[in-house]
């Protein structure tokens, strides 16, 4: 009996459709979120993350409806986020069928939000999303889709977030995101070894071997990817078989 390492596909949406960003500017339609969710459920994903990357106030209802449609397809845990600024935003997303909320920019703007959400829904439902970029000898937190520097040190912010009530960290390397060079094992390892909650590594995955590296070299608890799964460059079963063959515990039976 060992806790399995989790493989998590991520759906970036504009609220209603899955989009694929090329340097965050040119967004291209990549499918229907509910259809993709059903496919990943069948293929053996361990969880699903759905993000509203536009995160604007005026289409909250659309995103909540998307969560509802995705949740209908799933017999797996669902994490959703983008634009959650308060307890009532969070409640709407959870009531629509999500199990966990990811909080990013709003937590930097108002750190008390993490404590409010975990007091209301439990820390297991609160995921602190951190977008980090190498600056000098450490990593700096960026917000608003990786555009705005905050001056916060990623490691210190991760620790503060956990102390405030985050039950998990979704850690994206801005340097690796979209590069297909593999996860940032140095960043992931530094954070994963310093906090008491699970860490999901994100950014840069392009092959099954990249997942092996981030689980063994960097001690990630879970790993997230979008593009390689959507495009079918490699499948979740392929990644899991590779990990199993190399001795990493994964959930293979559906």
């Amino acid at each position: 009996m060992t806790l399995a390492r989790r493989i998590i596909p991520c759906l970036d949406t504009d609220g209603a459709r899955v989009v694929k960003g090329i340097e965050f500017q040119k967004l291209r339609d990549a499918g229907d979120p509910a259809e993709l969710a059903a496919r990943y459920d069948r293929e053996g994903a361990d969880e699903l993350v759905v993000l509203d990357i536009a995160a604007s106030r005026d289409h909250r209802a659309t995103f909540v409806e998307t969560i509802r449609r995705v949740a209908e397809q799933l017999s797996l845990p669902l994490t959703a986020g983008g634009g959650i600024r308060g307890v009532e935003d969070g409640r709407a997303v959870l009531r629509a069928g999500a199990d966990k909320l990811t909080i990013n920019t709003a937590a930097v703007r108002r750190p008390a939000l993490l404590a409010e959400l975990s007091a209301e829904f439990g820390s297991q439902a609160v995921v602190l999303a951190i977008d980090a970029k190498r600056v000098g000898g450490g990593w700096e937190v960026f917000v608003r889709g990786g555009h705005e520097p905050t001056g916060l040190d990623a490691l210190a912010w991760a620790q503060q977030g956990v102390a405030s009530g985050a039950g998990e960290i979704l850690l994206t390397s801005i340097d690796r995101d979209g590069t297909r060079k593999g996860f940032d094992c140095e960043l992931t390892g530094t954070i994963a070894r310093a906090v008491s909650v699970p860490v999901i590594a994100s950014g840069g995955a392009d092959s099954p071997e990249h997942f092996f590296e981030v689980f063994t070299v960097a001690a990630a608890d879970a790993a997230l990817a979008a593009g390689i799964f959507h495009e079918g460059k490699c499948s979740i079963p392929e990644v899991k078989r590779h990990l199993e063959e190399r001795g990493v515990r994964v959930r293979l039976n559906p």
Partner: protein
Amino acid sequence: MTIAILDYGAGNVSSVERAFQRLGAPTRKACGPEDLEGASALVLPGVGHFGALSRALRERNLLPRLQAALERQVPFLGICLGMQALYEASVEAPGERGLGVFSGSVMPIPAGLKLPHMGWNQLRLVPGSQLFRGLPPQAYFYFAHSYAVLAPGQEAAAFCSYGTEFAAAVEQGVVFGVQFHPEKSGEAGAQVLRNFLECMP
């Protein structure tokens, strides 16, 4: 036949509802005591804090009706915090009381590993349990919790190990509890729910 799913305002009741509906079982959300009337089975889902659950059951006046149903042997399934609520108390919320069907207190998972215990884990099944009929011993189930029943009595139906062993499932007659989330555990979880449905008269 209707399964009443207790909805006390926190967490994700709809996924439990959907999981039963996929198996063809009719459900209804139960927010107050009158909604429990005539239900052929009760399901208590649970996420969040033991104290919040305990208070919500009290404030919504669900506690006496729930206890009466348990005495009448109405099939009951507690999920995650809903399983913990079957015990007398929890270290998570000193002073708050659970349903007390089983004796003992819910304890924190001892420090040392990452918490919450979050993700997919395997079980050690106690032979003869009803909930796990037809399931292979290597099946995985989804957990998300930081507290657990570390020293269950005869009611233990399955154990899980994360630093230490704890009760992953309990059963006694038609009262069942699972620490994991069957509604989030793919086909293995669906089989557990199917087995629960089979216990209904």
